[in-house]
Structure formats: C-alpha cells, structure tokens
C-alpha cells in the first residue's frame, strides 16, 4: 500500500547540495514516483566535503544533471526531472505546483522565503532544513493548518551577519543528518504516517550531540498566512538577494581588471577566506577590522570593495559611505565571480 502511494507521489527537491545529496538518495531509494531537482549551479571541488552525491569527475558539470545520473543508477524506476535553472520568482509557483511537496535544500535566505511563499500560495508542504557550522534546523512549513517560515522568522537577518556555508564552514556529516531527516519528514507527509514536524522546529547541535525542539504556531499577523496577509502573489522585487543596495555602484567581475587601473582593490575578506588567492596591489582589511583601521584609507581615492561572495563587501561599502567615503564601487559576486573567469586564480 505505502509503496504504491509513494510510486504515485511527486517531490521537488530545490538545491542539490549538502542537504539535497542525502535527501535525494533516500527519496529515490524509497521509490518516490517522480523527483524534480532544481539547481543551476555547477559542481565545485569545495562542495565535495559535504555534497556526497558528486565525485571528482563531475567538477564543472550541472548539479541537477549529475544528480539525476547517479540516482538513475540507484533506482531507474523513478521518473527524474533535472531542472538546471535557478529557482526564481518567475518560475517558483509553476514548479511547486507540478509536485506534491517541496524540500528546501537551498543555501540563501531569499530563496528560502521564495520557496515558503510559493508553497503556501500553492497549498504544498515545504520540508525545510538548514545548516551552519555545527547547527542544523528542520521543520515542515505550509502543511494544512500549520504555520510557515514567516511565522517563525518574519524577516531574514541583516546580510552582513549571514555568512554562507562556503564562507563560514559546516560540518559535512551534519548536512547528512539534516538532509536525511528532511527525506524522512517528506516520506511521512506523503504517506500520512507518524507525527511530522509541523509547528515544531527541531534544533540539532552536533557539537553537544543534542536535539532540542521548540513549538510554534501560525501567527495571525503573518504577512503570508496570517488573517490579513499582505503577500498574495510572488513579486520578484521582494526576493532580491540582499535588501536595498541603495545606489551603491556595482562592478561586474569581468570589468575588474580595467577598473583597477584607476582604483584600488579593498579586499575585506577575513584571513581564513583568503586562501582563494589575492590580487596584486590590493589593500587587505578584513571586514571585522574595518572600523578600527579606517584611518588607513584615503577618502580621496577610488576603491573597489570586494569580499568572497559579495555580502560583506556590501556591508563595508555602506559603512564606509556613512564615514564619508564617496568614490566606492562594489564587486558584484565577489572574488569568486572574478576567480571563475581567471584560471590562474586558484580555488581552495
């Protein structure tokens, strides 16, 4: 009975990374009928520490496509939809609607809000997992009558306080624990068995080897699922990665070399991130020391401010502007975007 029910179920896994790897393997092995995999990213060697569905031979290939190849070997009876696109405002509702539930295995806040909102608007459950360093969180949002992500966290934290896994690091095995837990919750919801994590947030502390749980309810003031919801459709502007970068001029990575003829590169990466390599002539002031070392900067000079992926540098630009610096440009996508175009610039 259960097996037949699974064979007619359709699951959308958004993000084939650290959480997606284990979740996909267990969902495919369990015999879910159709699995959609959304990821526009390519396999990078820094991923292999936690994204165990990939191998060294896959570097540079699209993650959704490689994942489907692996899963076909594991269970050829499943229908797989590799979707090599970014999950975005213009496709979110359509994609979610095609499946019975979604797993949020992504790595940024804006996409997490987008998944939650699309799921609630389409009446699908959002099986949520997230990890950072040694801590993980699991819950099920958007189930009938249950609360959503916005009931728990109405707003994302400020961007400068939110390093990604690539920046802050994560225990690889924790991704396995949380991703497998998401698969387990998804299977329970599909089969209607047990007591899924609806209105409950599981907090995994891998250092203390402890799991705690807190309960939360639908918030009648929730902007999405509350009594007077303000969000009734998906509007692209609401999901831009970082909130209003009001008037900060941005520089595309491919124009960096030209720009540096007239400007100085201010590299605000923390020392542990600088393994990536550096650019000759750059001024290195980690974001955490910016306040203390601002006197080393010349307010008449032009600076291109850069970090690893572009979040901390945006913060640094804002802070420098407050301090009276005006000739600032922000490197979009950070030095990773630059490195992607320069083979001599080594990835760690």
């Amino acid at each position, binding site marked *: 009975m259960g097996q037949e029910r699974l064979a007619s179920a359709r699951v959308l896994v958004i993000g084939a990374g*650290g959480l*997606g790897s284990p979740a996909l393997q267990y969902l495919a092995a369990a015999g879910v009928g159709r699995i959609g995999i959304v990821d526009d990213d390519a396999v990078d060697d820094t991923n292999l520490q936690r994204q165990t569905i990939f191998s060294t031979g896959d570097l540079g290939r699209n993650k959704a496509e490689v994942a489907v190849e692996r899963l076909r070997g594991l269970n050829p009876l499943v229908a797989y939809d590799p979707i090599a696109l970014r999950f975005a405002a213009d496709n979110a509702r359509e994609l979610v609607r095609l499946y019975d539930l979604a797993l949020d*295995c992504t790595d940024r806040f804006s996409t997490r809000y987008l998944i939650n909102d699309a799921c609630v608007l389409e009446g699908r459950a959002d099986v949520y997992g997230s990890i950072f360093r040694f801590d993980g969180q699991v819950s099920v949002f958007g189930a009938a009558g249950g609360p959503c992500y916005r009931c728990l*966290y*109405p707003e*994302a934290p400020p961007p400068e306080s*939110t390093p990604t896994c690539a920046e802050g690091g994560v225990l690889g095995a924790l991704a396995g624990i949380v991703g497998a837990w998401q698969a387990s919750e998804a299977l329970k919801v599909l089969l209607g068995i047990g007591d899924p994590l609806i209105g409950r947030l599981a907090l995994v502390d891998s250092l203390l080897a402890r799991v705690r749980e*807190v309960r*939360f309810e639908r918030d009648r003031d929730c902007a999405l699922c509350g009594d007077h919801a303000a969000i009734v459709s998906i509007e692209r502007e609401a999901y831009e990665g970082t909130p209003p970068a009001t008037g900060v001029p941005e520089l595309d990575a491919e124009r960096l070399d030209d720009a540096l003829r007239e400007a100085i590169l201010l590299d605000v990466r923390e020392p542990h991130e600088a393994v990536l390599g550096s650019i000759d002539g750059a001024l290195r002031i980690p974001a955490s020391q910016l306040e203390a070392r601002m006197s080393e900067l010349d307010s008449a000079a032009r600076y291109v401010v850069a970090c690893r992926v572009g979040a901390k540098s945006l913060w640094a630009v804002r802070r420098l502007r407050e301090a009276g610096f005006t000739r600032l440009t922000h490197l979009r996508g950070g030095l990773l975007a630059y490195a992607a175009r320069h083979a001599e610039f080594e990835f760690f």
Partner: protein
Amino acid sequence: MKATINGRAHELPGELTVAALLELLGSPTSGVAVARNDRVVRHSEYSSDVVREGDRLEIIQAVAGG
C-alpha cells in the same frame, strides 16, 4: 531574577519583555526566533510577552546554509 538563556543560567534585572531582553543582550530582532519555555513567542508579541523568574529561553538564529 534568574532565567536560563540557551541552556545557561542568567541573572536578569527583573521581569522584562522579550523585546527588552533582546535589547539587553544586544541581539537583532530580525532573523531570530525566541522560545520561552519551549514555545516560540510571536514577533507581534515581543513588546507584550513578559519573561518571568525561572523561564527557559532559547534565542534561535535563523541559518540558511544547505
């Protein structure tokens, strides 16, 4: 007044709202969930929900990694 915050005993100046507690701890209110005795306090109730003697508080940071 004694209360437990994230598993550790703390001495607080007296009964205070969740909003005042976050301010006292220098914590932002966005990207955070506060559970009092294992129940998450709705954000709309941060200025009215009061922390009392012996309460167990969890200040949970939203994380986005995956």
